């Protein structure tokens, strides 16, 4: 954490709330989350489907479709300026230029009708003052950087001529071609095989160091987070339930949900006999959640108060924050541990 404090804060999300109006009621997809991202840091956001991790990042990019979605509150400060107050017409100077994004499915995020070269050059020309020729040269350099062999020829191919892993490399090349300061990677390897996943993660890590880019990595895979991230936020039902640096989180998972999540993954390095640990029950329906801890129906350590009030965020020291009543009561004792 010390290193992060000395580094400049790039992005600060304060009490962000993104709601969706549906016929069945208001979906509080993201409900009051806050975090900071420093230069060169890799932040992981972990959660199950429907926990609001993707919506968080779409909100940062202001890509929430409205209606039905709406960012109803909070601030997103990028280098001190609130992105939410930037007029629509100026958003393009932020998207791609300062914050860029790679998506989960490399099969659908490239236009199948256009050559890779057209798509990459278009991106660069939109954001940077360059001639077409220079842009093409830059594209080829980027493709080389992400390890595409024979980039000079391959750039003139169509997306279907590339494999899934190669397409994800192209996406990364495009995302980094405008020297964005923050790269948001939304489940970048979920659609890929393990051996390809290892290649892509290695690449993201290497490029982030080389270009000093901050990375927000969204994933459901706890293994990916362990290898790549400096800090981790665990999300559940639209809220951050625990936030800590990676080592701390895995060594001392404090929220019962985080603890259960880490325990319920079968581990390669430890042979298990008998049963896996499992969190009983189903993830909650996020429509009209009651104002209490959303995890309490599945929690093994729930108390009376959990069913009545949302727990406050407690700092366990060293930036380890947890939203759970277990720690709220004996706040004095828990910091001594």
């Amino acid at each position: 954490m010390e290193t992060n404090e000395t580094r400049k804060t790039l992005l600060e999300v304060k009490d962000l709330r993104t709601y969706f109006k549906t016929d069945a009621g208001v979906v509080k997809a993201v409900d009051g989350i806050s975090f900071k991202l420093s230069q060169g840091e890799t932040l992981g956001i972990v959660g199950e489907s429907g926990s609001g991790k993707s919506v968080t990042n779409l909100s940062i990019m202001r890509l929430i479709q409205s209606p039905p979605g709406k960012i109803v509150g909070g601030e997103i400060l990028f280098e001190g300026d609130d992105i939410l107050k930037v007029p629509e017409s100026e958003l393009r100077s932020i998207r791609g230029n300062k914050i860029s994004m790679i998506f989960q499915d490399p099969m659908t995020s490239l236009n199948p009708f256009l050559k890779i070269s057209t798509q990459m050059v278009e991106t660069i020309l939109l954001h940077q003052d360059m001639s077409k020729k220079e842009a093409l040269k830059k594209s080829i350099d980027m493709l080389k950087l992400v390890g595409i062999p024979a980039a000079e020829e391959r750039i003139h191919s169509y997306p279907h001529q590339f494999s899934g892993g190669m397409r994800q490399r192209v996406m990364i090349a495009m995302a980094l071609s405008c020297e964005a300061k923050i790269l948001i990677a939304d489940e970048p390897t979920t659609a890929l095989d393990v051996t390809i996943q290892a290649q892509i993660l290695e690449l993201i890590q290497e490029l982030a160091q080389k270009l000093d880019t901050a990375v927000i990595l969204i994933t459901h895979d706890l293994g990916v987070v362990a290898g790549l991230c400096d800090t981790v936020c665990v999300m559940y039902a639209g809220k951050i339930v625990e936030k800590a640096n990676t080592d701390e989180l895995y060594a001392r998972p404090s929220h019962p949900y985080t603890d259960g999540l880490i325990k319920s993954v079968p581990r390669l390095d430890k042979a298990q006999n008998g049963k896996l640990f499992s969190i009983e029950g189903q993830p909650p329906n996020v429509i009209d959640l009651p104002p209490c801890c959303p995890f309490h129906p599945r929690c093994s350590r729930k108390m009376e108060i959990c069913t009545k009030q949302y727990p406050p965020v407690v700092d366990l020291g060293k930036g380890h924050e947890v939203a759970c009543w277990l720690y709220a009561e004996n706040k004095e004792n828990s910091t001594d541990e």
Partner: protein
Amino acid sequence: MSEKEIKKPLLQVRDLKQHFPIEAGFIMKKQVGAVRAVDGISFDVNEGETLGIVGESGCGKSTTIRSISQLYTPTSGSVVYNGLDLIKAKREELLDARKNMQMIFQDPYASLDPRMTVRTIIAEPLEIYKKRRMLEPQMSKKDIEDRVEELMERVGLNRAFKNRYPHEFSGGQRQRIGIARALALNPKIILADEPVSALDVSIQSQILNLLHDLQEELGLTYLFIAHDLAVIEYISTRVAVMYLGKIMELSRSSDLYKNPLHPYTKALLSAAPIPDPVIERKRQRIILTGDVPSPNVERVGCYFYDRCPYKMEKCKTNIPPMKKVDEHHEVACWLYE
């Protein structure tokens, strides 16, 4: 997983090949090639065990299962269940054998008919075999009704939900419906095609535990496919590693993870992330270069030749046979000759 007595093979697969023709021409179609999805594999599945098949996408794991259940007509080879070669069997015999061989599918959203109630879905196999008069003993309407309720209870669904439709359930619950349907006919062997890969981590462990319990209670045999190595290690007695339609290594699950022999298995194991940051940072990864080659070409050498870090001259022109290195461990690699 659990202690086994003397095992006898329940299912024997010998030199199974499944090629899909590639056709050209519009009116006068002719075959110009073949996708060699499964290209000569042999293995036994013993009674009461779980044989896991692991591999990347496109390696032929799902095709293997479909060829075994005769959803495709295999190109050549034999699949012997209980002394009966299913490929040459008459329709009546095949139907009878299939009663003992049921499938669970990957996508719990696509594998249940949205217009059928849970009751109809689970009762469907029973109804079909009742109509064919192949149920022993014959079941009355009431018997079927009772059986549905019993099955629902067994897989952890409330029997009051009998008349609901699949869209009213979450992913994990749908997978439970799929499992109940597979159990309806009291099968001996269950072919599970990635049953947990579409589920969230906390739900995944619930389903794995359920499958584990069912095996112990009902003495089921599983042929279990997954791409997640940790899941395979947890559930399997023995594991087969597939690559490009061939089995590369076959061994007891504990041996495979402690002592992988084939270079591909080694790479696969080292690429899988482990949810522990301390271990993860220290690990030495074998990163394979390139992608999986096309399965359309006939190969004369080792199928892994293009990506193998240890390739030798011999590998280029000779296909390595499966070689027993010890009683329970077989590998197809010239390094162990």
